[in-house]
C-alpha cells in the first residue's frame, strides 16, 4: 500500500515525535535529578552537553517538540473546528514552524 501523501506523513511524524519525546523524558528527569544531587555533577554534565554534536541533537529534540505541538494543534483544529479544505497547507505550516524552531535553536547555540 503506497502512502505517499502529506497528511499520512504528518500522521507519522506526529506519532514518531511523540515516541521520541517519551524516550527523552527519562533523560530529562535524570538531568534534573543531577541538579538536586549536587552542583559538581550538574556542572560536568553541562560542560559535556556544550559539545557541538549534543547541540545538534538538542536542535533535533526541539524539532520533535515543535512537530508534536504543531501536529497536535493541527489535529485539534481538524477535529473541533468546521472542516477546511486546506489541510495540506496546515501540514506545511506545522512542518515549517517545526523546522524553524529547530533551526532557531541551532543558530542560537553556535
Amino acid at each position: 500500500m503506497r502512502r505517499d501523501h502529506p497528511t499520512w506523513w504528518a500522521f507519522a511524524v506526529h506519532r514518531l515525535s511523540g515516541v521520541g519525546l517519551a524516550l527523552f523524558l527519562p533523560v530529562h528527569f535524570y538531568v534534573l535529578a543531577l541538579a538536586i544531587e549536587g552542583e559538581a555533577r550538574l556542572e560536568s554534565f553541562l560542560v559535556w552537553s556544550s559539545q557541538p554534536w549534543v547541540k545538534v541533537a538538542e536542535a533535533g529534540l526541539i524539532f520533535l517538540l515543535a512537530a508534536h505541538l504543531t501536529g497536535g494543534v493541527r489535529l485539534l483544529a481538524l477535529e473541533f473546528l468546521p472542516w477546511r479544505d486546506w489541510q495540506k497547507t496546515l501540514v506545511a505550516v506545522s512542518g515549517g514552524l517545526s523546522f524553524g524552531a529547530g533551526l532557531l535553536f541551532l543558530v542560537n547555540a553556535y
Partner: protein
Amino acid sequence: MQGTLSVSVWRGGEAGSFQSYEVPRRGNQTVLDVVTYVQRKLDGSLSYRFACRVGMCGSCAMMVNGRPRWTCRTRVSRVASSGKLTIAPLRNLPVIKDLTVDMTDFFDKWAKAGGVFKPTATRAEDFAAIRPTDSKRRHADAGIECIGCGICYAACDVVAWKPGYLGPAALNRAWTLVNDTRDGNGAARLRAVAGDDGCLACHSQQGCQEHCPKHLNPTAAIAGLKRAVAVAALKGRL
C-alpha cells in the same frame, strides 16, 4: 498504440501468488480492459468483478500498483508509465478468489454505523421541504455520491490495524444521515459511531480522501461525527 504491458495479477485466495501475463497496449486502455483481456484471451479461470464500466456501480475496485483504484476509470497510461502493472484484490477485505473480495464485512459495517434511513414522516404526508442551501443539507450532499466501491476502506490503515473499525465509507454514510433532517434515528446512530470501533478510532491520515475516486471526503465526515459525538457527550445524550 504499440507494445505490450507486463501485467502481474493475483491468482488464488489469501495464500495465492502473482502470475505474469503479456497484454497488448491499446489507445485509451483502462486497467479493467487489461483484466478483461487476460480473462477472455489468456486465462478464462480469472475471477474479477465489474458491471457498469462507467464509474457508477463501484464493483471493479482493485489494488493497482499498490494503490486502490476504480479500474474502469483508470487509464493504463496514467498508472503504468514503465509498462508494468501489478493488479491485486482490494486490501483489508478477505479474498474469495483472484481479484474478487468478500464485501460482507464492509457492508455489514454500514448497518452497524446506523446507515439505514429511518423516516420521521409517513408516505401519507407531503414531501419535506428542505432548502438546498441549508447548511445541514449541504453537509449531507457532500457525502451522498458514495458508490460503495470500498477504495477508502482499502486505503485505510486503521481498518488494517483494527479490523472492527467501521471504516470511512460507513462513517461517511452515518454523517450524511446525521445531517438529514428527515431522519429520526440520530441518537441511536451517534451511540453506534461513538464506540471503540467508531469515528473516535480514526487517526485522520486522510488516505480515504486521498484515494476516493468520487472526490468525496470521508475524513471531513468523520471529523463532523467526532464533533457531534463530543457535543452529545457533553450534553449527556450518549
